């Protein structure tokens, strides 16, 4: 970030409510809401449904606030990237200071609301998550190291733990397991995107893995993380968190995830450092395997967590018998 006070390029007074909604990164918010909901529903504690709904709303608001603060800080690099240059701040519809105030205000409201609806342990953890995303990831890691999204991925992995904490007031091994799945899922997800948006990141000076270490190294690391997340994705079956449906879903979708990761390794995705396409899912020739993995990785997480939601949300969850699991090992 170069200038905290830049408001000169802003056209005064034209921002619409929808521009402020865009500041919240609705697409990221939907993942936050979903994973937090799964954490809350899968946790052993019981919450009144109305308070649970308000808690999820508060977590979503906190996630949105973190998004707004991220856009405030990253406005300079957003302006340089095709994918992000139409966001409200670089497009001149919202001033940087306005985005900062909006993000801070929503952070405060979301933490307060979660504390009131659930408990202050969960609220403090939400505050820490916003801090981690904005200060540790956006300000600290993103522009300094190719490991930015590996470490920073923790911020996106915290929501199921916040949901769990909202329901129980504490964590246990299964909460950490949900965190770990998203944590290990993040690198292959973002590096697949970075492979086919490589020129965008290079232009903005962000040291994403393909920019710093090259496409071949990134493709290999994607495979390593894909193997790790696929294996870890099956572990909830053995801890009792996932039942028969989850077992089937995690094996099948994990297999497809691995297949697509192998396809990326065998491809030449990211080799051409030339300018890419502006739209999120548009790719130039040779990058299709990376785009496919990126797209499926989102679905993979939804499928995995969706199975837990169905099992725990409908009361149909029953852990597989120990003898059966021992037979598998």
């Amino acid at each position, binding site marked *: 970030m170069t200038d905290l006070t830049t408001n000169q390029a802003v056209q*005064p*007074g*034209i*921002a*619409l*409510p929808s521009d*402020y909604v865009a500041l919240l990164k609705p697409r990221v918010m939907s993942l936050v809401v979903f994973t937090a909901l799964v954490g809350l529903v899968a946790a052993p504690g*019981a*919450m*009144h*449904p*109305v*308070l*649970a709904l*308000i808690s999820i*709303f508060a977590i979503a608001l906190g996630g949105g606030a973190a998004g707004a603060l991220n856009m405030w800080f990253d406005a300079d690099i957003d302006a340089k990237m095709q994918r992000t240059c139409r966001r409200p701040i670089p497009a001149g519809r919202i001033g940087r200071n306005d985005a900062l105030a909006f993000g801070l205000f929503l952070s405060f*409201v979301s933490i307060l*609301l979660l504390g*009131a*609806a659930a408990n202050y342990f969960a609220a403090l953890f939400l505050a820490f998550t916003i801090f981690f995303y904005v200060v540790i990831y956006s300000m600290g890691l993103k522009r300094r190291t190719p490991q930015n999204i590996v470490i920073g991925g923790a911020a996106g992995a915290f929501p199921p733990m916040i949901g769990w904490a909202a329901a129980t007031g504490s964590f246990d091994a299964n909460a950490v397991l949900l965190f770990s799945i998203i944590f290990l899922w993040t690198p292959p997800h973002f590096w697949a995107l970075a492979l086919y948006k490589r020129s965008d990141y290079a232009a903005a000076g962000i040291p994403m893995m393909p920019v710093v270490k090259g496409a071949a190294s990134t493709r290999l690391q994607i495979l390593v993380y894909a193997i790790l997340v696929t294996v870890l994705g099956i572990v909830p079956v053995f801890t009792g968190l996932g039942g028969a449906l989850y077992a089937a879903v995690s094996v099948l979708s994990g297999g497809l995830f691995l297949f697509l990761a192998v396809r990326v390794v065998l491809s030449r995705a990211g080799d051409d450092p030339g300018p890419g396409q502006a739209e999120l899912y548009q790719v130039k020739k040779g990058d299709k395997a990376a785009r496919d993995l990126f797209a499926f990785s989102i679905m993979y997480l939804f499928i995995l967590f969706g199975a837990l939601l169905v099992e725990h949300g409908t009361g149909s969850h029953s852990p597989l018998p120990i003898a059966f699991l021992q037979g598998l090992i």
Partner: protein
Amino acid sequence: MSEEYELTQEQIKARDRRSKAIGLGLLVFVVLVFVVTVFRKMQELGLEPTG
């Protein structure tokens, strides 16, 4: 002393929509705090099951 200038129609419309959104947001917040307070009090008094 502040400089005065006339807002364009587009700015006036945008301002109205922002004002309405802020009003709605505040209303939602007040309702949520009220609902949370009622449910927590009911739980404290044992009038409502925990889930």
